[in-house]
Every structure is written in structure tokens, then in C-alpha cells.
């Protein structure tokens, strides 16, 4: 902190100014001219929180994607499929047992197992041939999407979250002051806030796992030099399977979370695949921190695009991607 201040005083001032003005935008009561300029405060703050929530969800999906790529150099284009599969399995289990948590756990385990199977049956057979691996994941996602459509049809499903997460909370943010002088506070669905918290939790756990545990150390070593790691007596195939299980499991978990915060339907697999792709392109492939940064940027861009530029929303996401690629071809945190 001190070093940053000393090193880049102007940058630090800009950062502080940006934080201050954002805080002012969130907590103050907006004057008339600002409302005339960019619309009601409620829209802005809601969009902001929506964007952060969506970013959290994207992080849950993309962290698994980037983890798998980082270690195995394999772009798993069936990742969106795993998200959708997790959502459906979680839904069935949650409906059957009437327990949302069980659904969450079942999705994580079931999709994790699918990931292990894929690694065991497919990827191990074509190591180092990343183009073929990518094509195989495309083939798997075509078949899986079609079979899922056959089983669960085109209906839209939605989870019922546990009792205490249901409903909305009042945030300590003033949205407007009525003419009678009554202060109106902003309300927001509790579950969506929990998505953000869960994403932060998963991020922290992943970071601790990768940086502080022995297996995490092996994974990081594998990212840097796979051959050397296996030469020093580590069973690298086991590590691969573990990483694949965690990465896929996270996608399944995100499926349940996303299905509760939003909904699940055929086609969502493509949406979350695109999200993961753009998030890791922007954030940098193979980096968990990059995935977090990318997820927040893309989540915010998407929500602000939807709210303020309805017909050109996607273009903002696209422009961000192009800009990042032009300045840093390997993404913000890419090496």
C-alpha cells in the first residue's frame, strides 16, 4: 500500500478519487441533475449489485475452467454443459429430497465424477494434442446437450432456495427520499447477495488450497513444469484427475447456484460457456485471480449494458475483450 503510494502517486490519487466517487454514488441521495443525466439511482445501484452478483456466478463457473486449462492446457468446451448438467442433477436431487443443500452437494459430486471420467477415458488418451482434446469436448457437449434436452425437455426450471435465504433484505442504501420526507431504502433479494458471498468464499478457499496446501503446491508445480513434477515422483495422472474433478464440480455447483438465483433452461450451457470464455480471455487463462477480475468486469459490463444500452449490450462485453487482447494478448493476469 505504502509502496504503491510512493511509486505511483498520481495513480493512487486517481484510484482514491474513483473509490470515493463510487462510494458517493452508492450512499448519497442523488441530486436532480444527476438523475436527469443517467436516470434513477435505484436503477444504478441495482445494476451495480446485479453486476457484482453475476460476476460472482461467472467466477464460480470460470474458476473451474481456468483451473483445468492452467494445469492441462486443455480448453474444456464442455464446461457449459457441465454447468447445465449440474443444475439438472441438483434440481432432481433437491426436488426428491426436499433439501436444497443436498442438491448442491450432489451436483458438485456428480459433475466432479463426470469430469474424472472424461479425464480418465478421453483426455488421457490424447495428451499433448490440445486441438483434438478441444474437438472431443465439442463433440461431448453436442451429444450431452441433446440428451439433456431429451431427458429434461425444453422447460424452464427454478430451484426453491432454503427458507432463510428466501425473500429480500433492506440494504443500508438510500434509494430516494419521498416528498413527504420519508426515506426509502433499497431492497435486494437475499439469495443473490449470498451468491456473491459464496463466490468470495470459494475464491478464498481455492486460493488457500492452491497456495497453502501440499496438493496445491503440486498443482502449481504442474502448471509450471509438468514433466519435472512427474519426474520427482508425483503421480501426475492423479493430480490431473483431482483438478478435473474440482473444476467440473465447481461448474456443477455453479449450476445449482445459478439455477436458484436465475433459472435453468436449454441454451444456458452456451451462455455460461461464452461467459467462461470471455472471462478467462479477459482475466488471463490459468489464473484464479484473473478469473475473479475478469468475472467482475464482465458481470458489470453485461448488467450495465442491459440496463443502459439494451440493444447494444453485448457489444460492450465484446469491446472489452478486444481492448484487453489489443493491450495484453494473454489477458490481464496472463503470463
Amino acid at each position: 500500500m505504502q509502496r504503491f503510494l510512493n511509486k505511483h502517486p498520481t495513480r493512487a490519487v486517481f484510484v482514491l478519487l474513483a473509490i470515493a466517487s463510487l462510494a458517493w454514488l452508492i450512499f448519497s441521495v442523488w441530486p436532480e441533475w444527476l438523475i436527469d443525466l443517467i436516470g434513477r439511482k435505484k436503477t444504478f445501484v441495482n445494476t451495480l449489485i446485479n453486476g457484482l452478483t453475476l460476476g460472482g456466478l461467472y467466477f464460480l463457473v470460470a474458476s473451474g475452467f481456468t483451473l483445468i486449462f492452467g494445469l492441462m492446457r486443455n480448453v474444456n468446451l464442455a464446461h457449459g454443459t457441465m454447468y447445465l448438467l449440474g443444475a439438472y442433477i441438483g434440481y432432481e436431487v433437491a426436488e426428491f429430497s426436499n433439501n436444497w443443500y443436498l442438491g448442491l452437494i450432489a451436483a458438485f459430486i456428480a459433475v466432479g465424477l463426470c469430469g474424472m471420467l472424461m479425464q480418465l477415458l478421453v483426455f488421457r488418451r490424447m495428451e499433448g494434442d490440445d486441438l483434438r482434446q478441444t474437438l472431443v469436448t465439442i463433440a461431448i457437449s453436442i451429444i450431452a446437450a441433446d440428451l439433456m434436452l431429451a431427458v429434461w425437455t425444453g422447460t424452464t426450471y427454478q430451484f426453491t432456495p432454503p427458507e432463510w435465504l428466501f425473500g429480500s433484505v433492506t440494504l443500508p442504501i438510500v434509494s430516494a427520499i419521498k416528498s413527504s420526507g420519508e426515506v426509502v431504502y433499497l431492497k435486494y433479494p437475499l439469495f443473490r447477495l449470498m451468491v456473491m458471498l459464496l463466490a468470495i468464499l470459494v475464491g478464498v478457499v481455492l486460493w488457500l488450497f492452491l497456495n497453502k496446501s501440499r496438493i496445491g503446491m503440486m498443482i502449481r508445480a504442474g502448471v509450471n513444469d509438468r514433466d519435472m513434477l512427474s519426474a520427482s515422483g508425483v503421480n501426475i495422472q492423479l493430480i490431473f484427475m483431482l483438478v478435473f474433478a474440482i473444476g467440473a464440480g465447481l461448474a456443477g455447483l455453479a449450476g445449482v447456484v445459478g439455477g436458484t438465483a436465475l433459472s435453468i433452461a436449454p441454451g444456458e450451457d452456451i451462455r455460461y460457456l461464452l461467459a467462461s470464455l470471455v472471462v478467462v480471455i479477459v482475466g488471463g487463462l490459468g489464473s484464479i485471480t484473473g478469473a475473479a477480475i475478469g468475472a467482475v468486469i464482465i458481470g458489470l459490463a453485461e448488467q450495465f449494458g442491459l440496463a443502459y444500452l439494451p440493444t447494444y449490450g453485448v457489444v460492450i462485453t465484446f469491446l472489452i475483450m478486444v481492448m484487453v487482447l489489443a493491450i495484453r494478448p494473454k489477458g490481464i493476469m496472463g503470463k
Partner: protein
Amino acid sequence: MMKGQHSIFGHFFTNDSPSLWIVAAVLLIYPAISSDFFTFQIGAYSLILGTISLSLMMLAGYGGMVSLAQLTVAGLAGYLMAIFGENSVGVMGFGWPWWITSIWAILLAALFSAFIGTISVRTEGIYTIMITLAIAVAFYFFVRQNYVLFNGWTGYAGIEPPTILGIYWRNPIPFYYLSLVVAAFCYWAVVYCSRSTFGLALQAIRDNPRRMQSLGYNIVLHRVIAYFLSGFIAATAGVLLVWFNGRISPGSVSVGVIIDILVIAVLGGLRHPIGPFIGAIVFVLLENFAIDLIDRERFNTVIGLVFLLIVLYSPDGLLGLWKKLWTRLIDSRKIRPNEIGNELRTKSADSIETS
């Protein structure tokens, strides 16, 4: 050079010209011996899909860049036809004459392809797939939610080919010949391009970009031009495709169709320009007749399984299978086709390096 010519056709056709002429003759008399359905829905459609996949094959096979945005380029050309030409929806539709519209649409779409190239050439291999897929999916979501330019979910309908010389070009037989001429021209152009200095340099860049760079070749420029040329082919086929369907909507540029193009190219084989056309014929036949064997709804499972089997067991597609069979059959004293190919490749690389 004689050897080179031999190998380019000998790759697939056993003994140069005879088989080439036979195929050409069959293609020419095909409408006479088949019904309207087979001429239009199978013949012309295969030729169009084959041409779009050909543009992917050119990029992937010669440039080593697997771009999933080729269908997007074709789709953009189709949309531009609707926007600048005539459509029956009542949105946009400037009503330009067909020949200006098509030239303009093809040119703009090819430029768009070059733009995609500029974005993605800075990265390599897997990254190219990811970025082009991201661009293609973003384009799909964009046309779906944009009503001002692309008329959103509904898209455009009533895009008709012109009536020239008293012939209505959407009738099966004229349309088949139109597609055949375009496909044959594109095929010839790709074969010609692969033997030109540009094509040889592109293939050398695919094999060893660093060496080519140190030899003074501008690899970024070569790749972007390859994107432009392949975009040109894809856009031309895109114009035909929109005439074929008469309409275009976000569904025409959705991920399913994007993957179909990749499936076709990989199915046929990415090593030779004839591959995509073989893949397209197999694909269209499966699409039309697999429903007799299984439920219509489950077509994607069938094509997915075929794709999976090909990727797992014959990475060079049906062409690769054919070549394997062929090398087993021919006399072992003869030089095998793939060896000639390698010889040509090293030879051409040498001649570039020494020149």
C-alpha cells in the same frame, strides 16, 4: 513442379485428371439424373455448406488457425443482403440492385473476417478457437437483441435471388448450377492459392512461425490476408445460403450451426480442399436420412457421435480414412501420396528459404 501438381490432386484422386474429370462430369449431369429434392435440398445445400467449410479448411489446413467464426462471416453477408437489398419484413431493406448488394455484402463481410483475424492472430492455437468462438457467440447474442439493424429474434425473410435472363435463380436446377460454379471456383481458388507464393509462405508460417519471421516475412499480415480471403469465400457462400433459405435469423448464426461447420470440415478432413465437400455431403445425407433410423429430435446425438468417432479414431477425417485404405492397397514400391506431400512441403519450404 510436375510432382507438385501430381501430389495436390493425387492426394485424393488416385491418378490425377481422370478421376477429376469423372467427378466434374457427375456433378454436371447430376440434376438430370436426380429429383428436384435431391438437386436442391441435397446437392445445392451440400455445395454451399461445403464452401463455407472450405473457408475453414483453408484457414485451419494451410494457416493452422481453427476459426469458428467462418459461419458468422457467412451469416453477416446474409444479413447485409437483407439490409441493403430487399426483404419482406419492412425493416431496413434499402433495395439496392442485387449485384451491388452482393458485392458490397461480400466485401464488408470479408473485411469483418479480416478484423476477426486482426484480433485473434496475436494469439495461437487453442486461444484462436476460444476467441473466434467468443466472437461468434457474441455476434449471435448481438443480432438476437438488436432490433434496429438486425431485427432481433425474427430476423429477415423474403430475400430472393434475382431473375436474370428470364431465369428465376431459386429454381432447383439453376440454383444448383449457380452453387456448383461458386463452389468450383472457390475450390480452384483455394488450390491455386495453396500453390502460390502466398499459400506456400502461409503453410511455412503454420509449420514454423519463428523461422519465417526471422526470414523477414510479416506473419501477422499473411495471417490477416488469409482471414480476408477465407472470409471472402465464406461470405460468397453466405450470400448463396441466404438465397437458398430465403430468410435469415439469429438461429442461422447460432452455436449449433457454427459447430456444424466445424463438424463438416473435420469430418471430411482438413488436409485437402476436397475434404469439406465430402464432409458436407455426408452431413447433409445424415441430416436428411438419419431421421428414418431414429427420432428426428435426436439428430444432434447422431452427428455428435459420428464427430466423436472421427475425432477419436481418424483425426484426418474421412479423407484420412480413405488415405489409410489407399496406402494399404497400392503397391509398396510406388511412392505413397503422403510421402509426396511431405516431400513437397520440405521442398517448398527450402525453396522459400533459399530464395
